[in-house]
């Protein structure tokens, strides 16, 4: 029934903000009034204490009690206003949320997400492309492996000839002699130093 439109739909954010500002202002006025009343009470208390005449003392007492009562009422009003402001702030947040979700769904890309059939088709297509690309890579890798496996080292270039072998053997012998000499000189040095210590 379109003609029974919800009252909240008609309400603008501006109206809520105005109401919040009004309440905040009232709350602040009450708060100021509270401190003024407290000051007045303190002054009357001092006067009451200083007064010697009983009737005037009673007058001050009655005035203080009346001010305390007013103060209590003001505190209650302030608390009510605070609660009211909190609720209006919640309402403002709700309006913002509503607008936020409306705007977000308006974004063209989000509209696209609503078309789930199209999305499934696109995802399947992307998956197909991915598998196809992976297949290409693995086939290429296999080709690499096949080619590498079929390769035989050229012995005349990378192999060891008799001359190379002889030279290597000579290197090894020289290295062994060097090591032995080094070991011998170290042990001789240790012996001399121990003799000197004795």
């Amino acid at each position: 029934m379109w003609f029974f439109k919800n009252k909240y739909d008609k309400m603008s954010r501006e109206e809520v903000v105005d109401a919040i500002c009004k309440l905040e202002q009232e709350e602040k006025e009450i708060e100021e009034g509270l401190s003024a009343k407290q000051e007045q009470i303190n002054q009357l208390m001092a006067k009451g204490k200083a007064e010697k005449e009983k009737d005037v003392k009673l007058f001050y007492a009655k005035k203080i009690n009346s001010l305390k009562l007013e103060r209590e009422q003001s505190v209650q009003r302030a608390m009510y206003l605070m609660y009211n402001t909190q609720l209006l702030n919640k309402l403002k947040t709700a309006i913002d949320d509503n607008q936020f979700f409306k705007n977000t769904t308006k974004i063209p890309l989000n509209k696209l997400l609503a078309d789930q059939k199209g999305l499934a088709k696109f995802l399947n297509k992307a998956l197909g492309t991915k598998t196809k690309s992976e297949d290409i890579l693995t086939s290429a890798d296999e080709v690499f492996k096949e080619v590498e496996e079929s390769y035989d080292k050229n012995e005349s270039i990378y192999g060891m000839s008799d001359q190379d072998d002889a030279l290597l053997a000579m290197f090894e012998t020289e290295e062994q002699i060097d090591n032995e000499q080094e070991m011998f000189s170290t042990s001789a040095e240790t012996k001399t130093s121990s003799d000197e210590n004795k």
Partner: protein
Amino acid sequence: MGLFKKKNSQNNTKDRELISQNEKAIDALLILAEKDENLVEKLKELKEKIKYLVPSPDDKIYDFDVKIKRHIEDMRIALVKSDGETSKKVENALADIRLNIADRNAKL
């Protein structure tokens, strides 16, 4: 062609009105913030920026102006609460408005 122009100007009017409203709303903020000279200066600067925004028939641009309006409203609440002095909320709203103006101009 003439019809198209008429439609555009009609849409422009909607945005132009919103820009004008935002400008007036800054005036209200200026009254609230009159105790804080520094804030008054910032608001005056902001008012000038809003005043010279180019109205557009584009809905996306209009949305930016709506966002600016909301931040101005939030700033008003914050100013009433802080008794016209700069608070964290006021600073945040000010920064958000500036950012929205910059984004709006970039999209235009």
